[in-house]
């Protein structure tokens, strides 16, 4: 699906009318499901996720040995067949999905204070309803909200967003540069390129991007995943924009949690 | 001490088998007695005999450690369950049991409190075929620790099972590294027959202490990997000491 990114340089507006540093609309709710310990519903633009958390509860013993006195974290992601452009049934053994759940598992493990829950399991179930870019970021944010709702202690919000770059030289579709080309030569025409915040599905297909997850508003990076080729010099900008985006995502999520808390306190 | 190489299935020539009138011959690992008087090797290695004890066995390197009663080993606590610690001797063997009270002077109140992952120096008390292996950290006759018990601090190095045996024998086993090193460095060593060596660099984990432990460990591992002879070992020690 070729995408005309050339128009960007003229109006400095993206396909959906955003500026380079604009987030899409984030809408979230917590405590959406009564039957589980914690739940959340999150929309980042058109990417929509439901997350439920069960636990900490004593699960089946895996292996037999206690795993160093920490709770086990299980992440399961199910992607609805209708969530993408093509209707696709994703199999159980999908490695991409496994990688996503592994990332969330690893990220959450260090953010949660699980020392007090040795021998128990926290299971996080994520359902992708629609996907339109920034999938991993949305999954991380939804999981964070559901974990907060479940009352599991954590150091801070784990918030994530994507950042891209309008550099087109290294996009997967673009003509690959021959090996001989010196990196210095290409940087001339790259100077006009801008970093972008929070990519949608179309932009993700065309542009190099990375997903950053930070611990709260600090500039400490917990998750950083990049899957597309890009000049190392572009990285600094992309990371900076991503980290900044995470700060904003945090304040949005925080206000969602606070609003919900206020309602609970007022009503009770 | 004679050494003759044998292969599995070889029948041991009778002149190798110690003949003593008043004592029965003891067969060690790697040998099998087929009545009336044939002895077959079940493993490749060198035949070794001890005339004084009237014993004969096969010395071999490699393979996994097979727990044998009265071996001294370095093992790792997995968990505490009921009145035992569950202990791992090698990753390839089912966990062994170490009773909570099998320590010097241990009572219900004073027994050592060990966490998962702690190391102990223990003796294999029993290794029955179809039941759990049992360990002990004291001499059950005298109640004395005899140097067994929890290992505090230090570092553990993995070596081959054969090398660990040679280290225990020291000079007789052709290993002089430790002696050579000990002339210049102060350290403490525990040798487990399961192929683990524990080295501790004395008081305090000062930079010197750590460095010495690393140096000792490296010497031992290089010796094992390269199968150095005494001269090679002396040379290695000289180099390592120079490096410090």
């Amino acid at each position, binding site marked *: 699906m070729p995408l005309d990114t050339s128009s960007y340089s003229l109006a400095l507006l993206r396909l959906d009318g955003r500026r380079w540093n604009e987030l899409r609309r984030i809408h979230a709710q917590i405590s959406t499901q009564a039957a589980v310990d914690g739940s959340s519903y999150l929309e980042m633009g058109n990417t929509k996720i439901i997350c439920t958390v069960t636990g900490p509860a004593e699960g089946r013993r895996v292996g037999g040995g206690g795993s160093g006195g920490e709770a086990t974290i299980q992440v399961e992601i199910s992607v609805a067949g209708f969530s993408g452009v093509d209707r696709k049934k994703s199999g159980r053994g999908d490695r991409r999905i496994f990688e996503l759940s592994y990332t969330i598992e690893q990220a959450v493990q260090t953010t949660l204070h699980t020392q007090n829950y040795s*021998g128990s399991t926290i299971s996080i179930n994520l359902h992708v309803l629609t996907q339109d870019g920034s999938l991993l970021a949305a999954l991380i944010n939804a999981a964070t909200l559901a974990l907060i709702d479940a009352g599991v202690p954590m150091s801070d919000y784990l918030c994530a967003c994507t950042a891209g770059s309008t550099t087109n030289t290294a996009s997967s579709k673009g003509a690959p540069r021959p090996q001989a080309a010196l990196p210095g030569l290409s940087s001339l025409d790259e100077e006009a390129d801008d970093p972008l915040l929070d990519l949608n599905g179309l932009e993700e297909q065309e542009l190099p991007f990375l997903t950053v997850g930070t611990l709260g508003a600090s500039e400490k990076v917990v998750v950083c995943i990049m899957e597309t080729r890009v000049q190392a010099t572009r990285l600094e900008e992309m990371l900076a924009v991503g980290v900044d985006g995470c700060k904003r995502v945090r304040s949005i999520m925080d206000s969602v949690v*606070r609003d919900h808390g206020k309602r609970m*306190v007022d009503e009770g | 001490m004679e050494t003759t190489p044998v292969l599995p299935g070889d029948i041991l020539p009778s002149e190798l088998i110690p003949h003593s009138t008043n004592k029965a011959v003891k067969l060690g690992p790697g040998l099998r007695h087929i009545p009336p008087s044939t002895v077959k090797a079940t493993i490749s290695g060198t035949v070794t005999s001890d005339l004084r004890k009237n014993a004969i066995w096969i010395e071999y390197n490699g393979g996994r450690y097979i727990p044998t009663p009265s071996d001294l080993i370095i093992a790792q606590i997995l968990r505490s369950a009921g009145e035992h610690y569950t202990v791992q001797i090698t990753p390839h063997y089912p966990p062994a049991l170490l009773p909570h009270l099998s320590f010097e002077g241990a009572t219900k109140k004073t027994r050592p409190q060990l966490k998962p992952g702690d190391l102990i120096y223990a003796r294999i008390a029993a290794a029955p075929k179809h039941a759990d292996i049992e360990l002990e950290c004291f001499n059950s006759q005298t109640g004395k620790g005899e140097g067994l018990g929890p290992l505090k601090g230090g570092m553990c190095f993995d070596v081959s099972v054969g090398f660990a045996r040679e280290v225990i024998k020291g000079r007789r086993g052709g290993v002089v590294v430790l002696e050579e090193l000990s002339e210049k460095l102060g350290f403490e060593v525990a040798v487990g027959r399961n192929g683990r060596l524990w080295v501790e660099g004395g008081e305090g984990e000062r930079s010197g202490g750590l460095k010495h432990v690393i140096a000792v460990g490296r010497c031992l591992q290089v010796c094992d990997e390269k199968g150095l002879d005494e001269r090679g070992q002396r040379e290695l020690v000289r180099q390592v000491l120079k490096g410090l």
Partner: protein
Amino acid sequence: MPISILPPAPAPSISYGADPSDSDDDFDLDGDIDMEGTSRGLKRPRTSQRHIVTPGELVTDDTQWMRGHGAYHPPDSTAIHSSVFGTILKTNKLLSIIPLRARYTPEIGDLVIGRIIEVQQRRWKVEVAAPLLASLPLSGINLPGGALRRRTAVDELNIRNFFTEGDLLVAEVQSVYESGQATLHTRSTKYGKLRNGFFMSVSGAGGGGLARKGGIARSRRQVFTLSTGRGGGDIDVILGVNGFIWIAKHVKPKMEEGPNRLEESVSMDVYSSQNNDIGVETRREIARVAGVIRALVEGGRRVDEEMVVKAYEVSLEMEEGMDVEGGDFLGGEKGRRVVEAVMSG
């Protein structure tokens, strides 16, 4: 609360930095919670009920406070940050955060309802909605044939005659290990196997303290008997602190209870899994009580004896005042009306 379908909302402005909630971040210890707990010499810890903290938020950097549950020190800092989403509770110099919603954390003396998950050699493993399964030792139950009877090897072999997998029971938390695992006991006629009734659970009821909303409150009476109208007879309601609820027909103990006759009252009948006869009217009223509790939970109200009794009466009145068209179902709009009526009345 189900997912609501939202009307198209205007895109929120990006300047979340100026969000009103942010002003709450500058939470001032002097202003809000003051030293009221200590200065007035109150025994009871006081909470700042209105103030909500979220994970990662700085609660105080004053070193006079000690860190309690739900709070942590970041590495190389003495400031106290919150690790959960909840309200602040101060007990003297101890500062803890009570989560608004959490799983049940067992405390000694709690009355809980549990389900047997596993039968082991000398004990049962009981699901009580806590992070770890609780354990009920064989020595923690009243054996038939008198409280003074010794536990024998035969009892160990017949362990399934007392409780087996899937059985429900009401018990008290006897002790809590360091790991958070609870040990239960049923050594009282109040406790034991549950039958003749209906089980329901209310999630997220844990957390403790006063902050618990839309769940069961720890109160003086967790067990009460409700005399119902419409020929339903008496109904027992047991509100387990862990969020499990049991609603059952009230069955009079067969024998008069007396201090000296306690032993005889413990017969094998206590461990029967057979239900008594329950009339249709009773069943309907049990269902009504369940509906009332569910409505309270959905309305985010606390569940205790007072509220349940009140709500039950309101629902009866409403039933009589209206045509029976809606049936006895107390969901949705009807449930909301019951809750409103309770709160106003």
